[in-house]
């Protein structure tokens, strides 16, 4: 956000931002940031509602059902109704629970999810903050949600919660390493760690996106990112922390009402965030998928960047939902083997191979 490009060839400008930038150049960055933050708050409030609806619909259609149909058009208001219901429910606290930690635990993952969202580049001007060490920031903040889950499990005074939290803690920290190494790969090939810089390094045609620009390596890295982020999100096929048949509700067993919905909220916002990061790192973020033919590119460019960003993100989210209904759940030992004996060595090798190729000059 340090230098706002004044001359972009993007047709849709932030009108208020442009006016302010013209008249008060000194505070333009802040004004832009606050406007973005305001819209982000609205998005964060509506996003889980939409994603839960999407999840249920996708699940239903995979199983040849209809899913929620009653409340609103094709059940669109179903999750709003569920959220309102949870708002009116009492938060039960079991006997012997650590009151303060029990109260604090759902707040951490929810606010961490929001904080990572602040540095997602939605569009040229649509980003709250763009720290130079964006990748490190993402890794640091997303660690907070692990902490929240561990706190929830310990504070609940329930054996299922404790075991579920320890399992998902072990799982999340393991897969965070692969995630970090893949982000390092992207930092290596782009030479920048600000998320905006990473997106801008993919300018050009569709073949300049990192998934295609690194021949084969990019595709492998994208697949690894998908696997490790699915595990990081505790989603199926890696959802052992909430394996209903073994651990009832996992770390959230004792949670009810709004505290429970905060965990749910964090889960879905996190899903959006990691899909958004996948779009940023590999799929060109807010850039239009240009194909190198003048006329078509002009039409594609006319569509504002945030529309492309949301399209790509929803595509990745759909992949996550597809995984859920395609792969059977892994056991915890298989999960740990997958990370420590396959993904991590493969990641280190990928990093070194990319380094060699980059140094020799075979790629880029």
């Amino acid at each position, binding site marked *: *956000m340090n230098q706002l490009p004044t001359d972009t060839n993007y047709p849709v400008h932030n009108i208020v931002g442009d006016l302010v930038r013209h008249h008060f150049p000194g505070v333009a960055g802040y004004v832009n*940031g*606050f406007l973005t*933050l305001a819209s982000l*708050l609205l998005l*964060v409030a509506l996003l889980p509602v939409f994603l839960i609806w999407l999840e249920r619909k996708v699940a239903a259609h995979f199983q040849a059902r209809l899913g929620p149909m009653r409340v609103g058009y094709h059940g669109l208001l179903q999750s709003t109704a569920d959220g309102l219901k*949870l*708002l*009116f*429910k*009492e*938060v*039960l*606290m*079991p*006997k*012997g629970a650590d009151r303060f930690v029990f109260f604090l635990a759902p*707040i951490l993952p*929810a*606010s961490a999810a*929001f*904080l990572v969202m602040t540095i997602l580049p939605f569009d040229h001007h649509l980003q709250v*903050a*763009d720290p130079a060490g964006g*990748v*490190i920031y993402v*890794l640091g903040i997303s660690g907070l949600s692990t902490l929240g889950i561990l706190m929830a499990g310990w504070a609940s*005074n*329930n*054996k*299922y919660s*404790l*075991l579920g939290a*320890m399992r998902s*803690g*072990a799982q999340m*920290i*393991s897969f965070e*390493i692969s995630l*970090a190494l893949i982000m*390092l*790969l992207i*930092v*290596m090939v782009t*030479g920048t760690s600000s998320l905006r810089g990473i997106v801008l390094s993919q300018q050009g045609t569709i073949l300049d996106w990192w998934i295609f620009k690194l021949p084969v390596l990019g595709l492998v890295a994208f697949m690894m990112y998908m696997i490790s982020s699915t595990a990081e999100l505790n989603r199926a096929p890696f959802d052992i922390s909430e394996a209903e048949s073994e651990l009832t509700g996992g770390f959230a*067993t004792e949670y009810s*009402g*709004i505290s429970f919905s*905060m965990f749910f909220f964090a889960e879905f916002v996190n899903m959006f965030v990691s899909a958004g990061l996948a779009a940023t790192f590999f799929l060109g973020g807010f850039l239009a998928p240009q194909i190198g033919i003048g006329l078509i590119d002009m039409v594609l460019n006319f569509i504002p960047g945030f529309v492309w960003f949301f399209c790509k993100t929803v595509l990745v989210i759909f992949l996550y939902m597809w995984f859920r209904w395609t792969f059977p759940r892994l056991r*915890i*030992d298989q999960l740990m*083997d997958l990370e*420590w004996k396959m993904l*991590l*060595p493969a990641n*280190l090798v990928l990093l*070194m191979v990319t*380094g060699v190729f*980059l140094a020799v000059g075979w790629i*880029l």
Partner: protein
Amino acid sequence: MESYIMIGFSVFLGALFVGGAIITSKMLAFHSPEGWRKVQPYECSENPIGGARIRFKVAFYIFALLFLLFDIESLFLFPCMKIFKSVVAAQNGSISPIVLFTELFVFVFVLFVGLIYAWRKGVLIWE
């Protein structure tokens, strides 16, 4: 600097958002009468057997230690990765690409050996 000020505001707003939801719920929510059944920890509707602060597998701690090792490794690799491209493209004259690459390789190789050592020691086996 500007970015971090904005992030600071976001921290505040995020906390306000989540805290606001919880406080709203606290004011609106229905409270049923207290009772010992209500506050009993859930154990499939049976009376809980023993406390919940039970012993669990030490493997969790070993994996946490390994995580620390590799997470800090990725943090140490970060500056190297950041300048890698500019060094290779010879835009950064103060560091020789061969030295940088050798250092990187040795660092990752040592970690790889560490991983293999842990593997051979049987730490990575989850029973």
